[in-house]
């Protein structure tokens, strides 16, 4: 029996559809990421779970309770906002006590819970500070402590890391995940960052224009994206449209451009579609290597630890290749003639 269920949720604003055909069952203790570009309906879905938006149709259940029509303040659901939404005129303590007072928690219990959650997020000495006196990361922790103090049935996050710098973001990912496991609460996390979703979630829900494009574990999404949209969104940038043809007893995938790509066993009866290859799975090889494709470097970009190259193949296809910077591997420059190759097993076949 799932803990949080969304049944056939649909939300429209006038004639525009924000979310539709949304079905999802979340197990107790699970960490779910809603992943998608802006405007895909992920935040609307989160706000429907929190009670700030009422679905046009469909049903939301937490445990055994149908909360679809329950006002936001009657749901015991903790939401961590993108901008943290700490009350600027209250100290850290008063921020945390606000919800406890609203729930008529006794003063002894209140003291204990404030102490407990501040200990949990490592801010016990900041109890009398005002939000403006805290750094972004600390504000984030207070926002988290504030909802955890209420022992919520469900924890919701609305892109909570997008205002932090890159290093802190990675640190807070682990921190949030650790706290969620420690408390054992079910969580739904909205993000547009595929890396964040991969790093944190037990399961990822990829959204495309208000509909679920794919649901799966990070490994499933990474290895077997169900559509070109999902593949593109999780960082695959090489797509070849074409179909499988047999010639002289062998079967290959022939692209519209004339490029031929080897296929793995078991792929040979799928007909027309799209082949996709991750840029980091492609290698530069010596000229004359069997099956290697020849081309020239059209563009070279520094990405920090990796280099990204755009390779123009003889067939006219453009391929993006990412290569780790390593000692003894020279950086390739624009105009260089190169040969590229990838393992047949790294090819992903997409039907659309």
């Amino acid at each position, binding site marked *: 029996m799932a803990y949080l269920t969304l049944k056939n949720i649909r939300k429209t604003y006038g004639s525009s559809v924000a979310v539709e055909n949304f079905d999802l069952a979340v197990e107790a203790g699970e960490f779910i990421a809603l992943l998608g570009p802006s405007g895909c309906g992920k935040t609307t879905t989160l706000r429907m779970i*929190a*009670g*700030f938006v009422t679905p046009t149709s469909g049903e939301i259940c937490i445990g055994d309770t149908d909360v679809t029509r329950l*006002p*936001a*303040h*009657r749901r*015991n*659901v*903790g*939401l961590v*906002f993108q*901008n943290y*939404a*700490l*009350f*600027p*005129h209250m100290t850290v303590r008063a921020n945390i006590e*606000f*919800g406890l007072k*609203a*729930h008529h928690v006794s003063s002894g219990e209140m003291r204990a819970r404030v102490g407990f959650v501040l200990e949990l997020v490592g801010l016990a000495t900041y109890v009398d500070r005002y939000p403006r006196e805290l750094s972004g990361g600390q504000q984030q922790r207070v926002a988290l402590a*504030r*909802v955890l103090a*209420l022992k919520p049935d469900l924890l919701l996050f609305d892109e909570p890391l997008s205002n932090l710098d890159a290093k802190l973001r990675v640190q807070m990912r682990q921190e949030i995940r650790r706290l969620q496991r420690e408390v054992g609460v079910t969580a739904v996390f909205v993000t547009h960052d595929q890396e964040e979703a991969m790093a944190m979630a037990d399961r990822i829900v990829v959204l495309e224009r208000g509909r679920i494009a794919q649901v799966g574990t990070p490994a499933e999404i990474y290895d077997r994206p169900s559509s070109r949209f999902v593949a593109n969104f999780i960082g695959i940038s090489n797509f070849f449209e074409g179909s499988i043809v047999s010639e002289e007893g062998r079967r290959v995938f022939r692209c519209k451009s004339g490029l031929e790509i080897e296929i793995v066993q078991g792929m040979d009866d799928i007909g027309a579609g799209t082949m996709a290859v991750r840029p980091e799975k492609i290698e530069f090889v010596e000229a004359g290597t069997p099956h290697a494709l020849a081309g020239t470097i059209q563009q070279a970009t520094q990405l920090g630890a990796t280099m990204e190259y755009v390779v123009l193949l003889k067939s006219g296809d453009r391929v993006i290749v990412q290569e780790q910077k390593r000692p003894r591997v020279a950086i390739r420059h624009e105009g260089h003639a190169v040969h590229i190759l990838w393992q047949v097993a790294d090819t992903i076949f997409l039907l659309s």
Partner: protein
Amino acid sequence: MIRILLRCINLLLLLYLMAPIIVVVATSFGSSAYPLFPPNDLTLAWFRKFWENPELREALRLSATLSATSTFLATIIGTLSSLAIVRYRVPGKSYFSVILLSPILFPAIVLALALLVAFQRVGLTQSFKGLVAAHTLLITPFVIRLVMASLEDFDPSLEEAAQNLGAGWWRTFTRITLPLIRPGILAGAVFAFIMSFDELVVTLMLAGPELQTLPIRIFNYVQYSSDPTISAISTCLIAVWLVIGIPVYAKFLSVRHS
């Protein structure tokens, strides 16, 4: 060079603005029977005369009561109106806010005549209730403007956070919204009080012989008398303004340096 010139212009402008005030304050302490600047001898006689004049004292009491009552009503109405304008999608909202702010835009004399005609119909002329109604109408727009400004700076996700933490609308409003827009409300109230206390045109039209506010009394007084009592009243008002008005102005209405 241009900088020095600008400084000089600034200084002259400041002097031009301050000079009348300095003259009024100085003459109120002068002992001659007509305002003389600079005063040749110092006395507090004109302040005593103001305080011992029952008509002026009664006028001060009336003005204070009238302005306080109108400000109280305008602050409540103005705050609620600005909440409605800023927060909710009311159909025809832009027209609504223009109408609410129109008393600022109309010439006072036009409004005064309109109110006279309207109030005669319902028997509100020459009554305290009528004056309160008129003043409230005149000063509410100022409250609305200032509260709207502070509401526009207010982050609506704070209210959502409060609800998410289990607070109903009343707790959310009293603990979160109200404390955070209080500076705007306070500034609006002070501004409104000053506008009301100062009001002459509309009040003159609606007030009967029994309802002589301080501005009306002052207006009448200077018509047949020229002793510095009026200067003494002005000095008192300036003092009150310095203590209450200026700090509020400086805090909430000044040009913001970011």
